[in-house]
């Protein structure tokens, strides 16, 4: 199951593990990604916390935790190849995984269709 936040993060849930990244819409808006700061394993994040920072040639942007949980793993491939975020924002360019502490938070996030409608409205 994949859900999306209004701040352009995606969450893929398998059991109680969530994989989190930024959406393809977000990577296009950022442009060439040159640096990603990821949370350390073991870090506890509450929904809405600043979880990561993504820097493009032009500017730095915060990535927020779309759900609460404890970080289990960060995508270390992004340290040496931050442009993976441009090439595959919603696949190889994932940011981190966490163990969900409140799975009910997922209900309030958008599904794929709702997110597509949301970004279509932003572009109007």
């Amino acid at each position, binding site marked *: 199951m994949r859900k999306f936040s209004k701040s352009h993060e995606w969450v893929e849930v398998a059991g109680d593990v969530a994989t989190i990244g930024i959406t393809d819409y977000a990577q296009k808006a950022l*442009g060439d990604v040159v*640096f990603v*700061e990821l949370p350390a394993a073991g870090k506890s994040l509450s929904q809405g916390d600043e979880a990561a*920072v993504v*820097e493009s*040639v032009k500017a730095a942007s915060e990535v927020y935790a779309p759900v609460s949980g404890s970080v289990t793993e960060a995508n270390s491939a992004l340290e040496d190849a931050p442009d993976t975020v441009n090439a595959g924002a919603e696949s190889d360019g994932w940011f981190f995984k966490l163990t969900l502490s409140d799975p009910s938070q997922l209900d309030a996030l958008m599904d794929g269709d709702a997110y597509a409608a949301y970004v279509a409205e932003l572009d109007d």
Partner: protein
Amino acid sequence: MGQTDLKRTPLYDQHVANGAKMVDFAGYAMPVQYGDGIIAEHLHTRASASVFDVSHMGQAVLRGPDADAVLESVTCADLSTLKPGRIRYSLLMNENGGIIDDLMITRLQDGSLSLVLNASRKYIDMQMIAAACVGKDAAIKLLEDAALIALQGPRAGAILEPLLPHCADMAFMDALPTVFEGDAVLVSRCGYTGEDGFEVSVPAAKAAALTKAILANEEAGLAGLGARDSLRLECGLCLYGHDIDETTTPVEAGLTFAIGKRRKMARDFPGAQRVMRQLEDGCDRMRVGLMIEGRRPAREGAAILSPDGTKVGAVTSGSYSPTLERPIAMGYVAREYSQDGLALQVDLRGKAVPAQVAPMPVVPQRYRRRSAMIAEQQKAGGQ
């Protein structure tokens, strides 16, 4: 996109059709990048050539018998040595030695002066120059109906020559009045990327046609303001409002080459008292280049720290360098920390990251200077 109140350049429709991401820059809707992205546009400019729309910049003409005297009264330029068809970089200055704007001054064939001003400063500059015209036999006029198209990169001359004959014979900082499809245009061999290249002042109605004619050559690409910014940063060129402003002097900014020799001797330019004292005794801070370790770019405002962690300055421009594939920056530091090679640190979101003072430009400028052209001709003639 909420951009309806922004001004548009004559190339606006072409930018949108070419997939540009448009942003507000100095009140204009401008392309920050096209589909390929800033890094690709940057590298294409260094390898071949790119078209930049810089029509948002102010283009003005100062005419009249007192034109030189008027412009000298508000700048540090010595215009007595500026010959027709030549361009000079100069600074509009305040009485405290601060920089009101940096500008290009071209001597036209009829003796009048053509100016290119920063978009964000053009109305302030115009007011200042118009005020200096009062009581003098000179008048300044902003060209509202002209576009400015830059073609920058090592292939620029070869691409432009078939469209604008004789431009390949020009040297860096030459200006040539010529004709494009029946309209008068002014070609200047200069730019803001560190590469060889041209800026063409063209009637607004012909801007799209000229751009299309350039882009018909496959060696030419499109580049936006994002690439323009990373290109100029690599080559140590200042961005007004960031690296220079009304509080920075030419000495602090490392721009003393812009002060005419005669003006230095006479100490008669605005702010001369303070600037000459700084030239003779040194100043408290200096603009420097920085090589940042790691991958994280330092941004404007980041504190520059001494090795022991004391704040000794601040970053004024910082980005990722596509050419060097690493973060680079420029900023001001206390004079005792300004020597090349010195190990400093930059505060990146609370983390002190090692940085080294680097001689600017960190990527060499590749202008087509007259001296190099003459040497080439002599070599060819001797064979």
